């Protein structure tokens, strides 16, 4: 079987009023990957996500997900294998209670009632929102709504999980727990695709990054490579994280060879550096 579960080929799209959202974008996503679509606001990331989920139809080009074109009639049947989490949880939660929203998808897909109950109970405890079960969405905080949104997608046990700006507006604790959940899912085999302009969260959110700006693909590569590519980030209207900036400086000074991208690796690097320094002086 082909390893690529998402194939985007020369896709173009424009919104009513003639706004060109995408002008010919191609890339692939392989099974089990953790990929980020990186780009500033209005770059076309969200549009790409909706196209990948078969919710919008490309004007030109085509997208295949699980070897099925998103425009084909059979695509509806693949819904179960594909979970999508919208940026604004008020778009995602449209029923009267948390539990009703979580069970909405499984019920529509005609999963037997006992299994629906079992799945929703499992997901409530996995995300840690049992206490919110009967709460109506308008009585949840933003962070709680985000968690419930994730649960409504995960309850379908998707093989491919797509999230639009998952870390936007989240406080640090919620962000931490979201990233942990996503990584846990990825370890269990779920392919995770996120769109983001949150460069700081990138090292933990993705192994590979696809950079999009003004509706075009600017480049792609391993997260550590993209984060060090100031030129690429600059063209996309973004800039490297503080830690990368710091170590890039040290690199240009000739003190180190490779640039760490996480705080943990950075700390290790610094200690190493200090050690060699003290060794040299003594």
């Amino acid at each position: 079987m082909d390893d690529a579960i998402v194939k985007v080929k020369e896709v173009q799209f424009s919104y009513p009023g003639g706004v060109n959202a995408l002008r010919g974008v191609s890339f692939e996503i392989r099974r089990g990957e953790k990929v980020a679509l990186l780009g500033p606001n209005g770059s076309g990331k969200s549009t790409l996500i909706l196209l990948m989920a078969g919710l919008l139809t490309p004007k030109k080009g085509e997208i295949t997900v699980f070897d099925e074109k998103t425009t084909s009639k059979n695509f509806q049947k693949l819904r179960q294998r594909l979970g999508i989490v919208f940026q604004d949880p008020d778009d995602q939660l449209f029923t009267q209670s948390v539990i009703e929203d979580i069970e909405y998808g499984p019920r529509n897909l005609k999963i037997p009632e006992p299994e629906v109950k079992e799945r929703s109970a499992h997901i409530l405890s996995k995300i840690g929102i049992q206490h919110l079960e009967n709460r109506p969405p308008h009585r949840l905080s933003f962070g709680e709504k985000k968690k419930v949104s994730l649960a409504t997608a995960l309850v379908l046990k998707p093989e491919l999980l797509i999230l639009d700006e998952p870390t936007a507006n989240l406080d640090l604790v919620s962000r931490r727990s979201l990233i942990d959940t996503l990584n846990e899912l990825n370890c269990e085999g779920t392919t995770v695709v996120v769109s983001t302009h949150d460069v700081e969260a990138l090292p933990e959110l993705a192994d590979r990054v696809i950079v999009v700006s003004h509706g075009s693909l600017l480049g792609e590569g391993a997260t550590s490579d993209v984060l060090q590519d100031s030129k690429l980030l600059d063209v996309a209207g973004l800039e490297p994280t503080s830690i990368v900036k710091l170590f890039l400086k040290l690199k240009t000074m000739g003190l180190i060879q490779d640039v760490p991208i996480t705080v943990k690796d950075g700390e290790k690097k610094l200690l190493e550096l200090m050690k060699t320094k003290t060794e040299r002086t003594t």
Partner: protein
Amino acid sequence: MHIPDGFLSPQIIIITFAITIIFWIIAFKRVKGRLDERQVPLMGLLTALFFAAQMMNYPIVGGTTAHLLGGAALGIILGPFAGCISMTIILVLQAFLFGDGGLTALGANVLNMGIIGVFVPAFIVLAFNKITKGKGLLVWVFIGAFAGDVLAAIAAGAELGFSQPVFQYGLNVAVPAMAINHSVIGVIEGVVTAVLVGVLLKLRPDVLSKSSVLKSLPAVKAAQENTE
């Protein structure tokens, strides 16, 4: 204009419910037959918006207040049948959530504000749109919305007037009192609805392409073709 319980006689209650139920059935069949899936959330969200907009009161002369009814806007933008369902949802929720309008008076309130207040503006705009070919549209939107509110008030006055002895006053008092009182609201409704339609036509004519009343306008047609 929301008639509470205890104001209408049993005869009027039965008659108004009978007329309203017939309209409900017709409107539901019409809407269901042509329902595009996207219209389900669209109708739900727009109904919520106009419900919220109705919660705000405008101060009018002498310390009294008035709020929009929204029937004209919903009838013109969604079309009269979908508009009727949308207004019905608002009126039922106002009764069952806020006690605004009674249960036994629900038939009358829907007849006044959800049928007369929706169909009259929609038909006035539709008719004059055909005659004047879209010229002076906003003037007709104003007239339609004004007429819708005033006629709805006159209908409410008539229902009350015919409800003697449960209600205290006859037609000669109830009808003029309601009509005069609500002509002020009619003017407010007319201006706000005309501005709303005008701004939408200018900024996003495509959002009006599903309206059976406005879809024949050149600007709306052009926007519709652009999206396809």
